[in-house]
């Protein structure tokens, strides 16, 4: 199981939770497991074409998955997968 940390903007679609446990060996699988528990999150995060919307950032252990293999980035037992809006800063 990985722990998926949700930003405040997504918590209403996850019953108010700030973190959700979800299984999978890649980020894509973990997100699928997350969407199965909270269907509305799929619509908010997915671009409908197998990818993520362009202003969604996902991190595994603090590292942006675009420095890894994107949605194919490996996730190990107990890893923290963090979802955050991309538009901050600058």
């Amino acid at each position, binding site marked *: 199981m990985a722990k998926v940390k949700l930003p405040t903007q997504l918590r209403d679609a996850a019953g108010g939770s700030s973190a959700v446990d979800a299984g999978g060996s890649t980020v894509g699988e973990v997100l699928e497991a997350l969407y199965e528990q909270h269907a509305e999150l799929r619509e908010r995060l997915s671009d409908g074409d197998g990818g993520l919307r362009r202003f969604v950032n996902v991190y595994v252990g603090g590292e942006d998955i675009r420095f890894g293999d994107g949605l194919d980035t490996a996730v190990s037992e107990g890893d923290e997968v963090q979802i955050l809006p991309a538009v*901050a800063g600058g």
Partner: protein
Amino acid sequence: MAATQLTCRECGADYPLEARYVCHRCFGPLEVHYQHGHLKADLPELRRRIQSGPQNIWRYADFLPVQAPPGPSTRATSRAGLPAGCTPLVKADRLAERLGLREVWVKNDAANPTHSFKDRVVAVAAQRARELGFDTLACASTGNLANAVAAVGAALGVETYVFIPSDLEEQKILATGVYGTNLVKVKGNYDDVNRLCTELSGEHESWAFVNVNLRPYYAEGSKTLSYEIAEQLGWQTPDRVVAPIASGSLYTKLAKGFDEWRALGLISGDLPAMNGAQAVGCSPVAQAYEAGHDVCRPVKPDTIAKSLAIGNPADGPYAIELAKRSGGGIDAVTDDEIREGIRLLAETTGIFTETAGGTTTATLAKLAERGDIGADERVVLVITGEGLKTLDAVRGTFESYEIAPTYEAFEAAVGVSA
């Protein structure tokens, strides 16, 4: 106020003018929208009103997302907070001559209270934060923003938390801590700091992170740079603007400023060709532009231009769009070219800029050398920060004489015949 709502740039959803920055439906960025139609009725009167306004950004209050400027808008009493803006636009004939260009102007935004354009954006964010009832200001910064937030907190008597990468230039750290802020040095790069602050802003609801939850208001402050440029050029747009790109916020908001005033008929001229400047060591936007991509792949920054070292630029896609739409472009220059850019600007204009300004000046030089700038063009170079904040960039770049205090020693060493 003329601002009416926040609108998602991706899906068009509208939101009230609250402290929110992300569309709940699609995570797209929110941007302030206005209704300026009523100002069209008497444009000469609007110009007069602006010209008789305070000598700072609040002369443009009609175009900023606040209910009212801080304090009455008279020349004597509009100085609540820090009076940002109304910086010099300097005609740089010697720089133009060196580069073989007809007309170059330098917008010297180092002439702000904390010596960078960040005082503009912070002034707007701080005022909106007060209107929305926040008791604390905070930011994720590459240095200049840290200076500006800490200083405005001191001026307004508001608690501040400033988050910076721990390896920032010493000058920027010292010029932040002196104001009495809570200075948090994060072991990581700016993108790590930004990620932390994005998370913190969700958990500390009474904090106004100027460039996170207040970002739509904050970003609007950059428009005042183009308002000033247009006003200083006699209510017209220049042909070309060269400006730095870090997150892409300043660069895109410069165009928004020109577009708003053009739509209103307040100024004449086309949207300038917008040229963006990045450092090769952190050039996600320039790389995406060159490759023809519409999104940026993040990078790990490695450049002396630390104020531009954002590897994961929030407004990257919009910056690329603007470069194409305006007939400009986005270039990247090496650290050596940045150092040469600092020297070039200093030697030809008397303006000492930091590494971001060196990046911008080097990009102008590159455009000139490549023949991208037309013979009849009026070009504005946007200098966003002060050279005293990045002294290491000029260390060892010039020679000096060290002599005994005698006439003979001077003549022997320097050898100037009388």
